[in-house]
Every structure is written in C-alpha cells, then in structure tokens.
C-alpha cells in the first residue's frame, strides 16, 4: 500500500515547529507545540489530532515540505480520531464513491477536469474555453476531500483507479497529456498528495489559474478592464500548491481588477468555515465566516472571487448579504471579456 513520504527525524530535530506555531487554529507556545508534535511523530496521542481543523495550511508552512498535514491525517485515521461525525463520514464515502459508469469519449484540448461537479460546468464557456472538453464525475473524482474526514485510506484506494480512468477513457486515446484542473483540490492531488504517497501521475496537471492567465494573454486586446475591487478567498487546497498563488495577482492585472489588501490572504488566508461546520465546530465556523466577510468588506471590495465550489457555497450568501458580489474566478475572467 502507498506510504507517506515523511521523515520523523526531521520533525524531531525541528526547533521552529512552524507547522503548529503558524497554525491559525491551534494556540500553543513553542514548548507545547514541540511536545505535542513530537508525540504525534512518535505515533502517540496528541491534542493536535482533535484540534486540527484540517485547513491544509501546514503543508505550506513547513519549511521542509515534510507533509505535516498528511501525517496528521494518517495519525487521525490510525488512532480513530474522527474530525467529522461518523455517519456523515460513512455517508460521504458512499455518496462520492465511483459509480463505474465511465465510458470512453474523444476529448479535445483543452481538457478541463471539473472534479465531481458537473454543476460548475456553466463556467466553461466563451472565448477562454473555446473547443474545450469537460470531464467530471465520480469515476474521475480526486477524492482529496477525504483528508477532512481522516481518510487517507479512501484516497489511496480510489485515486490510482481514477487516474487510470482519466488516461484510458480520455487522454491516451486522444493523445493528450495535459489536464486542466478546475478545482485546486485536483491540482493539489496530482502535484502534492499523489507524489507524497508515491502514486504516479502520468499526465501533466495544469492549474486553472495558470490556464486562465495564458488564455487571457491570447485575447488580451479584447479585455475591457473591469475597474472593480475584488477580494480573493483562497481555498484550503491551494495550500498544497502555493506556487500557483501568484496567478491571482497576474490575472487581476490582466483583467484590470484591483486587489485591495485583506488581512486574511496569501499565507494568512482563513478557512471559509465550511469544514468546521461539518466538524460540528459551529462557533468557529460562524466566526470564520464573519471574519472573512468583514475582512473583505473592510478592504473595500465590490466583488468576492472564489475558486472552490465549497467556499462559494459557504460564503456566497453572507458575502451577498454584506453587499458584495460573489463570483467564481472563471466567471470573473469572462466578465472582463464582456461574456
């Protein structure tokens, strides 16, 4: 079975314990953080296991890329710590499980992987996506969401099959090697989680922002600058691929959107509050939603842009109530093209 590439010695020698010290949800001084994290590394019980809100951020905070979050998830699963109630966990395992209904189909560049969510397909239209083929559904679903459920095992069990499905049904017969990942979650799976567990990814994943940026460059002369202030809600899964975060600024520059400074962005981004709600941490969930919305509002933003459907579902209502317009990144780009 696939084993996490994790170096315990590195952690035991680590003196900064950035993974915990920078965590926005666990409050410990350095001594306690060291003690609790060392316990975790030794496979013992640690309060980190139950305090973690599964925000993925320590994957970005660890200066050595030692996969502290994936390790937390391994330990939660091993020690039977369920961040989310068991019936909800079990039901999600079934709901998101592969239906085995995939059929080969001819695909054309660009191939956009919509993850599970056909509901978001409306965003794939217009000049930026001309000729695009979308693929989606349970049989190609990255399953990374199970990190929130302490279920690396489900991802390990399903992901190789999903990758094979993508190759044999879509990419290989059409001679295509790149897959544009609509959701950060898929991109993070293929560029971070899969390598961390030694799972080979035979195609080249491309982040949606990377794709949008280059597609916008090609139609640059058609862009009508938006001249609006837009706050960006960075999703948890972008923590797995921080190297793509700069594209937000790059895209904004191209489409003439201003990005007013927020407190909670870049590496200080805050969870939208959706997962803590599922984890029955209702006060935290409400606090996070409120902080995010107040922060966007205080920045003077007129729009709030998302790339994660879950963040969108969680915050779109509160954002709209606060007088801002919630929008997905692909739609924001299309707006700049008058579409």
């Amino acid at each position, binding site marked *: 079975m696939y084993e996490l590439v994790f170096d315990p010695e590195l952690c035991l020698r680590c003196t900064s314990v950035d993974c915990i010290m920078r965590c926005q949800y666990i409050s410990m001084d350095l001594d306690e953080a060291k003690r609790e994290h060392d316990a975790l590394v030794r496979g013992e019980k640690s309060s980190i296991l139950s305090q973690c809100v599964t925000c993925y951020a320590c994957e970005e905070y660890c200066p050595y890329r030692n996969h502290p979050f994936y390790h937390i998830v391994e330990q939660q699963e091993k020690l039977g710590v369920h961040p989310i109630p*068991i*019936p909800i966990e079990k039901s999600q395992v079934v709901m998101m499980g592969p239906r085995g209904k995939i059929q080969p189909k001819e695909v054309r560049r660009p191939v956009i992987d919509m993850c599970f969510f056909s509901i978001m397909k409306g965003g794939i239209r217009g000049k930026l996506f001309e000729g695009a083929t979308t693929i989606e559904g349970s049989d190609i679903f990255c399953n990374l969401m199970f990190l929130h459920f302490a279920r690396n095992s489900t991802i390990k069990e399903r992901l190789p099959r999903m990758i094979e499905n993508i190759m044999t049904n879509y990419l290989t017969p059409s001679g295509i090697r790149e897959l544009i990942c609509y959701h950060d979650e898929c991109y993070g799976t293929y560029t971070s989680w899969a390598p961390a567990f030694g799972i080979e990814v035979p195609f080249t994943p491309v982040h949606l922002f990377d794709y949008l940026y280059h597609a916008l460059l090609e139609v640059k002369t058609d862009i009508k600058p938006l001249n609006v202030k837009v706050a960006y809600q960075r999703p948890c899964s972008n923590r797995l691929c921080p190297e793509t975060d700069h594209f937000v600024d790059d895209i904004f520059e191209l489409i003439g959107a201003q990005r007013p400074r927020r407190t909670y962005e870049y590496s200080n981004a805050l969870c939208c509050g959706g997962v803590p709600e599922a984890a029955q941490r209702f006060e935290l969930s409400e606090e996070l939603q409120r902080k995010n919305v107040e922060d966007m509002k205080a920045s003077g933003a007129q729009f709030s842009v998302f790339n994660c459907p879950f963040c969108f579902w969680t915050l779109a209502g509160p954002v709209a109530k606060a007088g801002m317009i919630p929008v997905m990144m692909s739609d924001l780009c299309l707006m700049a093209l008058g579409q």
Partner: protein
Amino acid sequence: MFTNETLSRIREIVSSEYVTNEPEDLYIYSRDQGVQDPHMPDCVVMPSSTEEVQEILRLASREQIPVVPMGGGLVLSGLSVPLKGGIVLDMKRMNRILEINEKSHYAVVEGGTSQGMLDAYLKKNFPHLKHSLPDAPPAATIAGNIAIHGSGHLSQSQGGFHSEMVTGLEVVLSNGDVVKLGSCSTVPYWFSRAPLPDLVGLFLGWNGTTGVITKVGIKLYPRPKLHDVLVYMTEDIDLAPEVLTRVINTETAEDINYALSPKPDYLNGFQMMVINITANSEDEMALKKKIIRDVLKDLYETKESGFMPVPPNMKTGFLEAPQKALSKFADVRRGGGFEYVGAIMPIERIPDACRAGMEITARHGITYSLGARIIGKGHCAMFFFAYPFNRVDADEVEKVKMALEDTNEASLRLGGIPWKAEVQGQQLILKQMDPGTYSLMKRIREVLDPAGIMNPGNWEVS
C-alpha cells in the same frame, strides 16, 4: 337505486356539463394511486354551491344512493373510491376563498378549496400569513385533509393535527340539512369552536361518512421572513426519540421530520432528523440554531451522530412546502403506484416502527421509505411506512397489499393507530376499539345518516 331518472334529476340540479356517467370518466373515479380494488361509481357530480349539495343529498337520501365526497382524491387508501357505487361528489368547483381574517388569524374557504389555492392566495395577498400545508400534492383539499385528521408543516409547532386547527364548519347532512358549527353558528365570526359544545368533531376523522363539508374555518399563523433547516444524522435507530424530544423541548423548531430510507444509497442505514426553523431576523435565526445545537452537544461531541452540512441545492429541497421528496419517491418503482400506512403513535415507538417496517418489507420483497412527522410539540408522531410499486406488476401490487395489512397490524401492536386507514385497516381498529366507543360511533352514524348513504363501507360498524 341509481337510474336514468336519477341522472336526469341530478342534471337539473347541477348544470349538465358538471355531471358525467361516461365510462372513461367513471374509470378515473373508480380508483386512486394506491392498491385498493377499484369500484365504479354510477355518476360523478361537481356541485358549485351548498344549495346544490343539499339538493343532491336530498335526492340521494330519498333514493338510497350512496354519496362519496371527494376532494383531491389523493388520500391513497381508497377512502374516496365509491365502494358501493353511487354518486361521487367531486367538490373541486367549490373552491372560493370566502374570508381572511388577519387579526383573528383564520381563513374561511369552501369545501373544495385546495391547499395550493389557499397557499397561493395568502402568498399573494397576505404574505405575512400562512396555513399548515400537508406534504400532499397541492391539489389536495383543505376539507378532505381535515376529514381524515391530516397533518402538515405547522403541526409540530402550532398544536397538532389540521383538524385541531379547524375553527368552524358548514356541513350538509345526508338529509340535506345545513348545519353550522363553531362560533359561526352564533355570530358572524369564525374564530373558534369554543365556548360552545364542540360538535365539529362529528365530521373530523369520519372520512366523509357523517356529512359533506361545504365550508371550513381554518387557523392562520404568521409566515416568518426567514426559513432554514438543520439536519441531524445518526446510525443508531434507538437514538432518534432522544434527539427528537430534546429538539422539541427547545420550542424553537417549526417542523420536525424523521426519515429512514434505503434510497439514495448514501443514506441507506442513516436516519435523518430534518429540523425546520423560521425566524424574522438573522439574529433570531442564529439564536434558534444555537439553542438546538446546544441541546445536542453532548451527543455530537461523541462523533457518533451529528449535524449534516446541507449544500444549497439540497437545502432548496428541504425548504419547500409541500415537500416533493415523497411524491418523487412515489414513482421510484415506475408505474406510479404508491401507498402508505401512516400510523399515529407515541414518539418512543419510532425505533420499533422502523424495525417493523424493515422486517415487513424484507419479508415481502418490496422497498420502503420510512419516516415520521412530529405532531403537537411532541405529543405523538405520524409515522409513515411508504411502499411504492409498479401498478402494471400485479405480483408487486399484491405484495404491497399484504405488506400494508401486516403494517396495520404491526402499528396497532406498537401502540399506534393506522391513520386514514383503508377499509381493512378500519376494521382492524374497530376490532380493537373499546366497545362503548364503537357503539357510540354506531349510534351517531344512525342519527346523522339514517339512510346509510354517506361513503358506505367506511367506518362501517355492524
């Protein structure tokens, strides 16, 4: 006996376009969506006024012709199917909304007014008011629903069955007499049944066997601006009564429903408690949610059960009234067949009712949807055992029929009483009933319907 002469006389009472004895029309009125055997009426009449109803009943009484009042015909257990032929009195033309009293919170409607019509009328003209909607399709009538002690989305928070929300009635008796019951019998207002001797009950739960309801006064309630839902999930059948009772006792939930169904497969084995909350401000909503969550804190902290996050697309479904989920489930086997035993029972028997439902359906090889609605701030539950079937599959129809019979028996064994029971179920109830009650029912029937023409076969006490 029904003759050509009877038909002509009826055509004189009600304009002939609203009277039919065409075989294709009679065929439709001979059956409902359930498994009960069809029975042909002799004719179908759609009266438009109390006076027309009076004249038809006078005629039927004289000639000893059975009369079956019918609203939407959606009861599913054959209660508006003419078991002994005769006249089906389809009330749908009597659909006027006669009065809305905003200050004393009641509506007066005619006996064929549908739930959907009153709801739409209130939404348009009195958006701050609503009545308690059942989850039946909107064509179900208010009179038909109270005639069987229906329940709906305000039954938990506003004090019970829809029949308990009746403020007054106008009824035509089998001999054609009109009676007014409740405050409207004495003053021009329809505000309540008290302080007079309460005769309204003579027509509630009687399945149209004591008279034809031509007007209903029904309570209205505020329609708060905000509506949201919490869904609590557990695998432990025995936990349900505890969760439900704790939520009920907060007095913050409008409607509380319980569901257990093998479909969709991701819900198989999980019970869901759907808690509807209404409020007039965000603060009120937040507080109510917090109160409900707090009473379940020690339970969800074990992670053995908990509140399920409800994505917006799912939430829309939970928030609609009437709920479409059961109607959709009704066609899960294709062929449009659907019937359920709804048993009114103590809340603590819900786990055993689930076990009984699963055992019975497994034994008969059919599928199910089980669920309950809490009635009257936790005084009982309407537990439904719903069985869909393909009506062209005779074998499946037979299995469902047998399962329904077994379910009626099981409900009674559990201390529940089958609701809107089909004739066989009624007989089971009567067999178990206190003889004094049974005999009183019989005497009341003899007084109100000496000719025995009102929906004969139902609540038949020999």
